């Protein structure tokens, strides 16, 4: 028997295209966020609250990923920013080629901030680099404080943790300090924000963070 020894990353094709996407973003000076979470954590609400604060001073575009429908793109379109909806028809995550294809519909030159909303899923999107600068994982207080321990890879591969729906804390059993600590046990380097997209509490800190990342 003979053996061919190789060292090839299984997702090398995806990673190659993600690297191309990243070069394109760098060339245009576009800061890119990849927002991930379970379904219903508030990714789209976070994008709406963010656009409300920044659209007048930071040229922004949005790529929406969903298994079905363009409902999210419709919500975002109300803010008069360029938005492209990717419908994955069953696939549970976005891959770099899908983002590359969506970019063909956006003139990146004036865009300083691109927000990509991934498919709602706390497992699969963690394996796929899209070319983003920062991966933002959103967890809401209604999901419980144990989620980082159950879905470690998503928290390990993210840079920012947003704990959403803090306005509901009086009504749920979630302990924010436990949730935050659990996430930091998986990834001690996470930058964390606690906010409510409904009451806008805590949104200011998040917006200041985005401001600090934008190339003027």
């Amino acid at each position, binding site marked *: *028997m003979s053996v*061919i020894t*190789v060292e090839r990353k299984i997702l090398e*094709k995806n990673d190659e295209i993600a690297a191309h996407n990243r070069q394109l973003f760098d060339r245009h000076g576009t800061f890119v966020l990849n927002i991930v979470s379970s379904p219903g954590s508030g990714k789209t609400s976070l994008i709406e609250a963010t656009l409300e604060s920044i659209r007048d001073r930071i040229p922004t575009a949005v790529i929406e990923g969903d298994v079905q429908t363009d409902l999210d793109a419709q919500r975002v379109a109300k803010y008069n920013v360029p938005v492209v909806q990717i419908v994955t028809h069953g696939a549970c995550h976005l891959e770099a080629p899908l983002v590359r294809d969506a970019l063909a519909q956006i003139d990146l030159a004036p865009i300083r901030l691109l927000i990509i909303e991934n498919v709602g899923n706390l*497992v*699969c999107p963690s*394996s796929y680099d899209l070319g983003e600068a920062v991966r933002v994982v959103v967890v809401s207080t209604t999901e419980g404080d144990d989620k980082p321990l159950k879905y470690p890879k998503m928290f*390990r591969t993210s840079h920012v943790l947003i704990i959403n729906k803090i306005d509901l804390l009086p009504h749920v059993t979630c302990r924010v300090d436990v949730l935050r600590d659990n996430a930091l046990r*998986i990834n001690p380097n996470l930058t964390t924000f606690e906010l409510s997209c409904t009451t806008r509490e805590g949104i200011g800190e998040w917006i200041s963070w985005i401001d600090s990342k934008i190339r003027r």
Partner: protein
Amino acid sequence: MHEASIAQHILTIARELTADIRPASIESVHVKIGESSGVLADSVQFCFDAMIAGTDWQHVRLRIDRPPFRVHCRACRTTSHNELGIALCPQCGSADTEILSGQEMAITEIHLKESAT
């Protein structure tokens, strides 16, 4: 359920690597999928087998190695197996750690039968 996508990528790369080898002489494809890679080995196996069924690769076996999630602590200089994928050192609690293994997703070897060459 992204394991079908993972299995497809494995098959594509393995076929590319063996493009000039007769399929009949290919015995097995060996991959490393870390225990904290977020990928279910059984599902990848199932999908791979389904994809090669009825093709000239249907005899090829997929062998999956599951490296454990191991963390080295720079503070107390110990190496531990953290089953839950936690980055903190289980001995001293330090966050100054380095992940040594358990996140792999790579093709490592392709085994050929004696008659391949």
